[in-house]
């Protein structure tokens, strides 16, 4: 196995993963809000670097519809979108999951309009957290690359057969160039293996029906099966993480801690903010502060027990939510973290910060402010849901 170092944007990393996966079909809407992922991937198609049937459709709704059709036909299928594009797919996003089609879709996390905004926040993917897709989040381009490759294996596992979203931060990750380490084509090809469809439509010797009417007599049972598949995916995700980790020499987990040992004040976050927070943690640790980070990689399925285990002994936790859930008590990540601790007798004081909406920058000063406020939260929780970086 040969690793190659490249200076790539997150979008290029993802397109590179797609090139190495060489999916049978990619369907995408080629106009905004499409991302540089498809820009780069369509070049691979034009240059003959992949065997992919690339279907350019007239909308994102059609893009996901074409993916559903091709995946049902038995083709390994991928796509990518962002923000309002994902919103337009909505109806078919649910159908992909409930029809149990192992599509892998890269999401470049960007704000939903309006007012019109194209910059990073997580309201697009968080909005469809109940759609039945597995959701994996990526801190940087290299993680987006790795998560995309692993996602293919997870989605297609016969105990799972669910679609997977691989998310990365819009612009911050998707457009910024970083040095990344990528695997060679052969290693990726061997890792993902051949795809054999589950009762594919194109198997004309075994004709089957997809998407029939499913009313009060069986719909509920099919939903129950989706719950089961999500639960099964926990074991599969862990196995795929471990197997891929042996290739890359890294450790992947649902939640990944940084300097959590003896930590009293911890920030929980997803995606690119983790990098900035690590810098602050190193600086504060130098000053003797017991601070740490818990980075979420997998949001669906959600692992209650692991969250509790990782944050055991912590006194104050600040959850950073890059999307709001209007009318709810805090953002989606906060709700999950707080709920995970419900049965625990020993639990940290947990607060939420909504931050970075519409691409508002999260800088080092803001993170220091969070850790400073957590000092007070250790003994007095105060305001549970706070806003970071908004002008009051």
């Amino acid at each position, binding site marked *: 196995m040969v690793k190659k170092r490249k200076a790539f944007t997150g979008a290029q990393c993802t397109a590179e993963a797609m090139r190495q996966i060489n999916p049978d079909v990619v369907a995408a809407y080629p106009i905004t809000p499409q991302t540089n992922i498809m820009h780069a991937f369509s070049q691979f198609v034009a240059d003959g670097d992949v065997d992919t049937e690339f279907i350019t459709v007239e909308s994102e709704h059609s893009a996901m519809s074409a993916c559903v059709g091709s995946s049902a036909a038995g083709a390994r299928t991928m796509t990518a979108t962002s923000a309002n594009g994902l919103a337009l797919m909505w109806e078919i996003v649910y159908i992909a999951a409930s029809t*149990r089609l192992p599509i892998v879709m890269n999401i470049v996390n960007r704000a939903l309009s309006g007012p019109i905004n194209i910059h990073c926040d997580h309201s697009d993917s968080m909005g469809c957290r109940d759609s039945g897709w597995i959701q994996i989040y990526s801190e940087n381009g290299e993680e987006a690359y790795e998560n995309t490759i692993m996602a293919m294996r997870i989605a297609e596992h016969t105990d799972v057969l669910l679609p997977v979203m691989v998310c990365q931060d819009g612009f911050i990750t998707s457009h910024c160039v970083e040095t990344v380490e990528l695997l060679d084509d052969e290693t990726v090809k061997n890792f993902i293996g051949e795809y054999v469809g589950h009762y594919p439509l194109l198997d004309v010797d*075994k004709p*089957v*029906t997809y998407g*029939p009417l499913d009313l009060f007599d069986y719909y509920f*049972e099919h939903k129950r099966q989706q719950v089961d598949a999500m639960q099964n995916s926990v074991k599969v995700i862990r196995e795929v993480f471990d197997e891929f980790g042996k290739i890359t020499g890294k450790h992947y987990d649902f939640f990944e801690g940084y300097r959590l040992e003896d930590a009293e004040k911890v920030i929980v976050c997803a995606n690119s903010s983790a990098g900035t927070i690590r810098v602050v943690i190193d600086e504060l640790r130098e000053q003797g502060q017991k601070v740490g980070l818990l980075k979420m990689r997998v949001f669906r399925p959600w692992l209650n027990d692991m969250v509790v285990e990782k944050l055991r002994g912590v006194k104050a936790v600040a959850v950073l939510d890059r999307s709001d859930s209007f009318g709810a008590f805090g953002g989606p990540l906060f709700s999950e973290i707080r709920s995970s601790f419900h049965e625990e007798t020993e639990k940290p004081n947990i607060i939420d910060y909504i931050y970075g909406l519409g691409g508002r920058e999260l800088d080092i000063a803001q993170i220091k402010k969070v850790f400073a406020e957590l000092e007070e939260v250790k003994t007095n929780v105060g305001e549970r849901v706070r806003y970071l970086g908004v002008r009051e």
Partner: protein
Amino acid sequence: MSGKLKNWKEIPIGGKILEAGNSKEYKTGDWRTFRPLHNPEKCTNCMICWMICPDSAIKVGGVDCPAKGQKGVSDKPNLGNFGGFDLDYCKGCGVCAEECPFKAIEMKEEKEFKD
């Protein structure tokens, strides 16, 4: 649906139906609220009901109506004769009753029947 319903572990995932040609197992008549009743006294076996039924629920092969006293009356089944309603598929739309030139079909509410 007739018969015992299966649990979530017993059915294919994703709503897939793995056997071809299964639509005949689905009885579409179970949502009927009106049932057609045939009056052999008025029926002339013109078979307009058979032609216009949207669900092909008019059966053929009945015997000629003996009460009519017509020539050539037979008690043998005849494919050209009205042979009853297929209540597995009749949705009770009433088109047959509406179109029958001899008022030989009457629609009655399902609740008036015991079966």
